[in-house]
């Protein structure tokens, strides 16, 4: 196990280096000269040159790259171009609100869609199964923007069941008052695609030989589904969840934006709108690292659930 984790950490290094190179390339070459962006439309050549020196982009490329790597290593990305706040400070304060919304969405959505998927897999091929699948397809076809716009308008603005937006200081108020509608909408958006996906996982398992053996033992259909099929289908479900976890951090940015939740996702949007490169760069690198660790965690969990997996 330790050897496996060490090997995986070792294998992360080239990927991390690649992410750094990609980010560096993107922000220093694709986008043109950042100095012009920062200086604005009207500025004298002296001002530009001044900013170039400040940013260090008058240096040779390898020096700039080295500076960037040092920034990554020391987790110090300088200050935001638009607010002058420390980038590390920005990220540290935005994680909490994001998780307050994200974790409940993830848990509720997963439990509900696993239950629903197991149910429709149980009655596979029936009218119920087909109707639910068609409803899921239609539900997936409506843009998540519409869910949020209409949900916020109808449930908060018109009916007044929830606050339209806002964020407070106390965790319980944030979770129970301000996050309730965002969580509800997040679950509503995620449940259809997940149910469809998990249903295919269950159907894959139902056709396996060991399910036939379980039936040949005389087990009831409930035991077959809840014990044998569910346990096996959990493997792809867990893998799937872990891999998409860091993506969700960003994925719910629309919810954060609409409900003015000061999270990572909203911060990304703001930074993109303001061309605030240090913030985008930092978030990109951190989320990439988080993704790599989530993948490692997925592999370890995989080992715990599936005895066949050899962690060498």
């Amino acid at each position, binding site marked *: 196990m330790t050897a496996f984790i060490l090997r995986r950490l*070792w294998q992360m290094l080239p990927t991390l280096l690649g992410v750094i190179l990609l980010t560096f390339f993107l922000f220093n070459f694709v986008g043109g000269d950042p100095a012009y962006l920062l200086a604005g439309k009207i500025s004298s050549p002296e001002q530009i040159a001044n900013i170039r020196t400040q940013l260090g982009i008058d240096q040779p490329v390898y020096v700039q790259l080295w500076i960037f790597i040092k920034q990554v290593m020391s987790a110090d990305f300088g200050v935001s171009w638009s607010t002058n706040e420390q980038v590390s400070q920005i990220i540290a304060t935005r994680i909490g609100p994001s998780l307050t919304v994200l974790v409940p969405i993830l848990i509720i959505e997963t439990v509900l869609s696993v239950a629903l998927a197991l149910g429709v897999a149980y009655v596979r091929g029936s009218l119920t199964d087909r109707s639910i699948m068609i409803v899921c397809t239609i539900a997936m076809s409506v843009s998540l923007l519409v869910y949020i716009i209409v949900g916020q308008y109808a449930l908060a603005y018109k009916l007044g069941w929830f606050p339209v937006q806002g964020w407070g200081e106390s965790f319980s108020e944030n979770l129970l008052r301000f996050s309730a509608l965002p969580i509800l909408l997040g679950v509503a958006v995620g449940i259809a695609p997940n149910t469809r996906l998990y249903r295919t996982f269950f159907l894959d398992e139902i056709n*396996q030989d060991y399910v036939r*053996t379980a039936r*040949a033992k005389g*087990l*009831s259909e409930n035991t077959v589904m809840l014990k*044998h099929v569910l346990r096996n289908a959990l493997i792809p479900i867990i893998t799937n969840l872990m891999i998409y976890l860091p993506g969700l951090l960003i994925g719910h940015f629309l919810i954060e934006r609409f409900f003015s939740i000061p999270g990572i996702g909203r911060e990304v949007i703001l930074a993109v709108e303001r061309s605030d490169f240090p913030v985008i760069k930092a978030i990109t690198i951190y989320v990439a690292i988080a993704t790599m660790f989530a993948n490692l965690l997925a592999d370890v969990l995989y080992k715990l*659930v*599936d*005895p066949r997996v050899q962690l060498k």
Partner: protein
Amino acid sequence: MTLLQTDNTMTRHDTLLSVRNLRVSFRLDKHTLFDALKGISFEVAREQTVALVGESGSGKSVSSLAVMGLLPKDNASVSPDSEILFAGCDLLRLDPAAMRQMRGREISMIFQDPMTSLNPLFSVGSQIAEVLRLHKGMNRSEASRRAIALLDEVGISDPGQRATSYPHQLSGGQQQRVMIAMAIACEPKLLIADEPTTALDVTIQKQIIELVANLRRKHGMAMLWISHDLAVVGEIADRVVVMRSGEVRENGSTQDIFENPQDAYTRALLLCHPPLDARPRRLAVIDDYVDGTGPSAENRINVQRGSSPNDTPLLEVTGLCKNFEFREGLFGKRVLRAVKDVSFTLHRGKTLGLVGESGSGKSTVGLTIMRLHQATAGEIRFEGKNLLAMSPREQMPFKRRIQIIFQNPYASLNPRFTVGDILMEPMRIHRIGANDAEREKLSLTLLDRVGMPALTFRKYPHEFSGGQRQRIAIARALSMQPDIVICDESVSALDVSVQAQVLNLLQDLQDEFKMSYLFISHDLAVVKYISDRVMVMNQGEVVEVADSDEIYRSPQHPYTQNLLHSIPRGWQHPQ
């Protein structure tokens, strides 16, 4: 008659299972119904072993699933006038809950592939315990103690330790023993075994057959044994039901079926498989019996095979090694030595048989000669030139001269190519024939030679049966006029009657074109029939080489002796 069979004089002949007029059809799509069983009837008496024998599509497995009530609910339907009486109660009319009480307790089943039939996520002990807790009402600790005892009974060493193992940690034979332990856990009255040894090596097959037969006698169970292999059935069954295309062709005692078969199809089946004690010029095929009375006298004449001092060497392999490497640990790697220092000579116009069990490295040898795998060490000299030292360009002219016919006829033909494309592509690459018109002509000649109609040319592989596809694969190999053909389990996936036809074809082609064959197979009877010399491999090494009659008459190496001893012999007349 073997010790495995029931002594008829001692058996009480009251019926346990009675299948009457069983009709099962499958809905393939909206407009097509496929009649898998067309009204079959047979009976199983208490403590008796009845075998259902037939080729693929005969409906033998569907019959067993119907008895278990495990037919797929969504597309299978059983005709309302069918009956399956088990101890006087009609299983087709039981409600689902009562049927579940039958399964695992009164009737239990073992399947063909033990690896996939066991749940990979539960320890084997808990999977056995599950059935005990369900039907015997045992608590957790009682059930797991009993599971260990059962594992001991089915011959698993260190059962206490093994009960905590997961299926993937066991060998195929051990997995099948676990399945058997699970099946006998509740002392059922009827045990259904659906091809339980087909996925296993011949030596393991022998152990499993003996185990099941002894357990059957000890527990006084009746058994329904489903198999395609008459030789196995002849050893274990008391009665044999021969099936074909959803119908029963013949039903009789094992002795009658083997010694005095009434049905033409039964007779053909018995003779299609190459016998160990004779080598007729041609093997019998179904048509011989369906049309007339059997193969012509001249085809029954035994032929002599073997090496002679006049043979000219064509391919000389010396010190061939092949290692496969796997990454392991932080920087480590594991090396699997699949082929270890193998040397042999293949002579012009002769057949060298290569036998071994799974993992013996026999197929790797063939693929390495083709350079489909890169050899780790050794030399392969073809007409004196080392193939392994050649660049791909230098090898091109030699590539044409060594061809291969694979095991799986469904995988070896590109499904997106027409048969014409499949046959003409090699000719285009090797510039055989001046233009496509000429190549088409050549292809049609080849198709005719392997017994396929000219219409085949424009069709796609999916329209043909396994045997027909294998003929097309042979035609493709022939299109390059090779000197050597490597047959890598080329007839193993085929039904026994089709296998005989393909073996006859291969023999005819060798006589006509004087090709050399390297014939790789796990089936000792087939190898003995077709080969001049036989090479036995075990765990990557050659253990014995000799003329084929010699090796079967007096095997020298203990491994070879064990292998030969394990071949099922079929029905032996009581002395």
